């Protein structure tokens, strides 16, 4: 793990959803619906709009980057030292919608990794406990 701060990595999550793109689009773009599955927010479906996702652990600073109703939505996602872009792509299928989420970002540099480490402590200890639990004592 000695990569530079410019290395780009991605997370892709895809799922076939049994609802049409129009329904899905509402869930992705209406603040009270977004809150029901993601986080509290002040999202407005306008390119350039800056908004925050807020949770008990902190907030995510975002800006709408791309918007094509019922097809694609992209916003920046900045949290815990991670600068990334989240892109939603909706493709109609015979039975509903293929939903694809891609988050692309930069690996934290040293300073950012430190903030990440502070956030990561609870997870880190959970992982450690799991690891230790698996090993015969």
């Amino acid at each position, binding site marked *: *793990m000695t990569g530079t701060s410019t290395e780009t*990595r*991605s*997370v892709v*999550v895809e*799922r076939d*959803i*049994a*609802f049409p793109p129009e*329904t*899905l689009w*509402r*869930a992705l773009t209406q603040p009270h*619906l977004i809150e*029901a*599955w*993601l986080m509290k927010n002040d999202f407005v479906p306008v390119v350039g709009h800056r908004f925050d996702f807020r949770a008990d652990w902190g907030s995510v600073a975002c800006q709408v980057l791309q918007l094509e109703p019922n097809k694609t939505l992209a916003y920046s996602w900045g949290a815990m030292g*991670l600068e990334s872009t989240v892109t939603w792509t909706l493709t109609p299928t015979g039975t509903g919608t293929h*939903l694809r*989420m891609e*988050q692309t*970002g930069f*690996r*934290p*540099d*040293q*300073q950012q*990794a*430190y903030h*990440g*480490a*502070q*956030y*990561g402590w609870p*997870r*880190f200890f959970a*992982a*450690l406990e799991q*690891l*230790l639990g698996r090993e015969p004592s």
Partner: protein
Amino acid sequence: MPNAQDLLFRTLADPTRRAIFERLCRGGEQTVGALTAQAGVSQPAVSKHLGVLKLAGLVLDRPDGRQTHYSARAGALAPLIDWTSQMAGFWESRFDDLEDLLKRMDQ
């Protein structure tokens, strides 16, 4: 990088050593003496733990006259906090809640 992870897990598996590392993370740079006062073990034991932490790249030492100051190394835990695996789990569970919401919207 399983080797880097193994080393970090092994190094931090010891609760006393982990407590020393946590104290350096939270309290910033400290001397062996200051760490010993809180560690509940002898100064040679604390020094030994600091040596192991240093080998794992978790702490830095800065000699200053007769004293050595120790600090947590920024980014040392980076191999354990690969953001892609964290976010993948996050989004998978958000997708679950999104599907639940869509079912409720449909009713």
